[in-house]
């Protein structure tokens, strides 16, 4: 019994707080407080980092006297996230962003108890009077990338390194494949999943498998892609289309372009709405028309895309943005 107690004590002592929440706040001092819950680390070079940087930029613009932020990261589990959401609400945070589709249930539950607080979550579609949902139209840029990749491939084989067949990943992959088919139906797309969002080594091996099977342009989503991009950069003549944020610093010689979400504008929109008394009730779309999605080309590889192809790409982009080209979503 004593040994068990000692062991538990060791466990408690050795386990440093993995997540840190902001300090207790006093309510009504006029400072806008934003709490953010992230499924992975805020420096994952993808989904979580994008949102972290977006909120940081908004808070920095407003000034420390007017806005503050706190982050809870690495909570893939919705139950833990639920505790963090409630904690922020209890501490008087004004806007609480749970940045993951898996957080929907705990978020709705807490939001009902704190009608004065704005809650936001995505990718999601459920809203209420104090809940914003946001929905990045991942398939739009993916379609355009697929279209471009199909024109650029030498081997006529492309690869998609997916994490888990759900959420954004499906939307993105679905759009990419449609783009390839529109450009050249004879180009093969290898689509596969690692079964994990964060296993970089596995994603790297999966990318290797694609390259083995002669894929010369790859793409993929989630924080695991850092590994896949490593594999791509190890192989000459193999390139990558990125998602979430501008990932070109990771592999400047391999990343053709990135679909980057402008989380800053999304967060700014929610802050403005909140201050104007609109606490939620809207699905905020991230798409090409509102420029919350940006397609960022890597200047290092600018020569790779011929000017005429680039011109065609721009006109396709306009068609997609205007709705002239409809990108379907999976049912």
């Amino acid at each position, binding site marked *: 019994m004593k040994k068990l107690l000692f062991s538990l004590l060791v466990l408690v002592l050795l386990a440093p707080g*993995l997540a840190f929440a902001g300090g207790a706040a006093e309510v009504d001092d006029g400072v806008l407080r934003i709490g953010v819950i992230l499924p992975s*680390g805020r*420096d994952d070079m993808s989904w979580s980092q994008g949102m972290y940087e977006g909120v940081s930029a908004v808070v920095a613009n407003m000034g420390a006297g007017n806005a503050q932020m706190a982050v809870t990261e690495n909570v893939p589990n919705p139950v833990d996230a639920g505790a963090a959401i409630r904690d922020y609400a209890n501490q008087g945070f004004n806007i609480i962003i749970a940045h993951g589709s898996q957080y929907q249930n705990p978020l709705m539950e807490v939001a009902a108890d704190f009608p004065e607080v704005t809650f936001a979550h995505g990718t999601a579609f459920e809203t209420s009077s104090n809940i914003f949902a946001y929905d990045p139209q991942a398939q739009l840029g993916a379609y355009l990338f697929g279209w471009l990749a199909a024109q650029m491939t030498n081997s006529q084989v492309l690869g998609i390194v997916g994490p888990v067949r759900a959420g954004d990943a499906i939307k993105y992959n679905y759009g990419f494949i449609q783009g390839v088919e529109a450009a050249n139906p004879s180009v093969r797309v290898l689509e596969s999943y690692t079964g994990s969002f964060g296993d970089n*080594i596995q994603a790297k091996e999966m990318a290797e498998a*694609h390259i083995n099977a002669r894929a010369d342009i790859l793409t993929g989503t989630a924080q695991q892609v*850092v590994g896949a991009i*490593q594999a791509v*950069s190890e192989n000459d003549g193999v390139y990558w289309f990125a998602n979430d944020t501008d990932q070109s610093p990771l592999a400047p010689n391999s990343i053709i372009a990135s679909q980057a979400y402008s989380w800053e504008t999304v967060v700014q929109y929610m802050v403005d709405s909140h201050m104007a008394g609109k606490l939620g009730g809207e699905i905020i779309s991230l798409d090409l028309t509102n420029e919350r999605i940006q397609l960022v080309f890597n200047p290092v590889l600018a020569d790779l895309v011929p000017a005429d192809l680039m011109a065609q790409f721009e006109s396709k982009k306009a068609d997609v943005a205007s709705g002239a080209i409809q990108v379907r979503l999976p049912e």
Partner: protein
Amino acid sequence: MSEFFQATVLLGLLTAGVRLATPFLFAGLGEMLSQRSGVLNLGVEGIMLIGAFVSFFVAFESGNLYLGLLAAILAGAFMGLLTAFVSVTMKAVQGISGIGIHILGLGLSGLFFRLTMGSISTMRGFPRLAIPILKDIPVLGRVLFNQNWMVYAALLLVPISWAVIYKTTFGLKVRSVGENPHAADSLGISVTRVRYICVVIGSIMASIAGAFLTIGQHEAAFVNNIAAGRGFIAVALVYFAKWNPLGVLAGAFLFSMIDAFQLRIQIIDIGIPYEIPVMLPYIVTIVVLALSTRGRVLGPTALTKPFVRGVHT
């Protein structure tokens, strides 16, 4: 479908299998030594993470990969001493303290990464090192002898571990301490000392396994939780291996080859849900384990049992 059986794809599969098996070999052989002495080190995953971060950080800052590896060895030794202190000296319940070590490694590696580097950076890791003559052996040469030197080291550790365990006086002491520490003690063997040595060596090997995930890759990078459960699989492989180095080799290769296989079976799109191939390595390993447990398994019977002179358990 037919293209799947092309030589290049098969070669790629086998090469990837060897590469994937490497961290399991380092961590698994180390864990096997630790368990042979009677200590279940469930913190392997956390120690791998520490090794992955420390080696990458030191190599990145110094520009010297070997310095990074040395740092991983030292960090592994430190974690080993901590593990041994908790499990051997303080006689804590090993399953629980191991989880503590895991959480510590996960937390510390993430924390130090944030404090020191802050963002994902990449660098060149150990390059491929083709072994002359051997690399020209058909198939085998490409698969086994065109990897980086850490892969060779891991493969060499299999016969070395085997010789240490079965052919040396130290190995005999380890086996006796893990099975009947009272017998060892009655002959003047220091159970504590042997267990400390084994846990520390095992932890160093776990740390090197972590280093392989960063600086052992051609393009090296550290990301949070890069081990992604490999440490726990290594622990499971030790049971699969029945505490035999050759079994660790077999288990690591079985698991990794099937993993490499499933990555490739997915991309030929034969219309099965991707979840099935993803689970395949685990399923096959469990099935093989279940089928192979027939016969007497002479594992270290004192595993997880702290030694107290005069108290027979």
